[in-house]
C-alpha cells in the first residue's frame, strides 16, 4: 500500500471525508458557542477550509480535539457572533435540529433546554462543557485543547452541569 512518507507512523492526514464525520458535533459545538445555527454553519465551514488549506497530520483518535481547537480559533476571530449570542438567546423550541431524531421526546426536550441554558454560562464553563459533553473529548483532551489542567476541567465541568441542571429543573 502506498504511504505518504511525510506522515509519521502514529499520525494520519486529515482528509475532507474524515472531517465530514465530525461535522455534526462541531456544528453543535459552534452553535453552543455562538448561538446561531447560520453562524455556526459558517464557522464550521471556515474552520474546515482553514484546516484543509494545507496538509495536517494528526495523532490517531485526536481528530476531534484538533478540530475543536481549530474551531475555537475561528470563533475567537469572530467575537461578534459570541456577543450576539448573549443578547439573543435562542428559544428551546427552535432547537429541534440539535438532537438525533431517534432519541425520545423527553431526552430531546432536555437537550433543547440544556443548549438554551448554556447561553447563561461563563465562557470558561461553556467551553468546558462543549468540549466534553458536546464534542466528546476526554478530560485530558479537553484540558489540552483549552490549555488548562485536568482537575480544572473536572471542576468547571461539574459547575457547568450544575448550572444547566438547575435550568432543566426550573422548567
Amino acid at each position: 500500500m502506498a504511504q505518504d512518507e511525510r506522515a509519521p507512523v502514529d499520525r494520519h492526514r486529515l482528509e475532507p471525508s474524515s472531517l465530514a464525520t465530525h461535522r455534526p458535533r462541531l456544528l453543535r459545538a459552534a452553535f453552543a458557542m455562538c448561538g446561531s445555527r447560520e453562524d455556526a454553519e459558517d464557522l464550521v465551514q471556515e474552520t474546515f477550509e482553514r484546516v484543509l488549506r494545507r496538509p495536517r497530520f494528526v495523532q490517531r483518535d485526536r481528530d476531534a480535539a484538533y478540530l475543536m481547537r481549530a474551531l475555537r480559533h475561528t470563533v475567537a476571530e469572530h467575537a461578534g457572533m459570541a456577543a450576539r449570542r448573549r443578547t439573543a438567546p435562542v428559544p428551546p423550541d427552535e432547537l429541534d435540529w440539535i438532537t438525533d431524531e431517534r432519541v425520545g421526546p423527553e431526552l430531546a426536550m432536555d437537550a433543547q433546554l440544556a443548549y438554551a441554558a448554556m447561553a447563561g454560562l461563563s465562557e470558561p464553563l461553556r467551553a468546558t462543557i462543549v468540549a466534553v459533553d458536546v464534542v466528546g473529548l476526554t478530560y485530558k483532551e479537553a484540558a489540552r485543547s483549552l490549555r488548562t489542567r485536568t482537575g480544572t476541567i473536572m471542576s468547571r465541568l461539574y459547575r457547568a452541569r450544575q448550572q444547566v441542571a438547575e435550568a432543566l429543573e426550573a422548567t
Partner: protein
Amino acid sequence: MTEPRRLSKRDQAQLVQLADGMLTGPARTRAEARMRALPDGERLVERQRRVARALGAGEPRPTIAPAPASRARELFPRLLPAGAIAAMLVLLVLLMPGGERSTVEQAADLAQQSATRPAPAASGAVLRAEVEGVRFPEWGAEFGWHETGMRNDVLDGRRTTTVFYEHTGHRLAYTIVSGPALERPDGARVVRRDGLEIAFYRDPGHGGHDVAVFERNGRTCVIAGHVRKLDTLLKLAAWKGGGSVRS
C-alpha cells in the same frame, strides 16, 4: 435549587468522574463513600448525568434498517387488513428462522432476552465461560460493569453464548458466535480502537440498541445494549485486560 454549600474542587472532580463512570476499583469506592457522605450527593451525581445525557443526545450513530419488516411488506398487498398482515408476518418469521436478519443482527437481538443461567465466575480479568477458546471479559473491577447471567442459543446453525452485564441500570449483552468470523453488517461504521477494528451501528429496533461487532481470535463478538456514550461500547470492546482478553 442550588446545592446546600459549595463543594471543594476535589469533591467536584470526584462527582463528575463518578457520574461519567470514569472511576474504577478503590478510587470508585472512595468516591461513592464521599458521595453518600454529602448532603444530596446522589442527586448531585444524577444531575450531572442528566445534563451529560442531554448534551450527548445529538451524537449521530449509523442506523441499519430492520430488514424483515420492510421486505415482508413488499410481499403483501397494501390493502390487506393489518391483522392479516401481522398474522402472515408471524408465520413468515416462524418459517424462516431469524427472518432475513443476518446472524450478527440476530446475535444483537439476544440483548432483549433473559438470562437462563447464572453468571459465570470470574478468574482474573476473564470469566469462566468461553466459545471455542474465546473467553468473556470480567469488566467489574475495571469498569463497574458486572456480569449478571448468561444464556446459550443456536443462530443459523451456529452455537452462541451470551453473557449479560449491568452498570447503573444499563444492560449489555456480549455474545460470542462459534465458527468462522461473520460478515460485518452493511452500513456499520468501522473504527480502530487499541488495534481492534470495531464495526458499530444503532439498531432502531428495541428502542435503539447500540451494537459493536468485532473479532477475537477469529470469532465474531457482538456487544449490544443501551449505553449513554458510544465511547463506552468501544472502550469495553477494545479492553484487553492486561493481555488476558485476547483479540
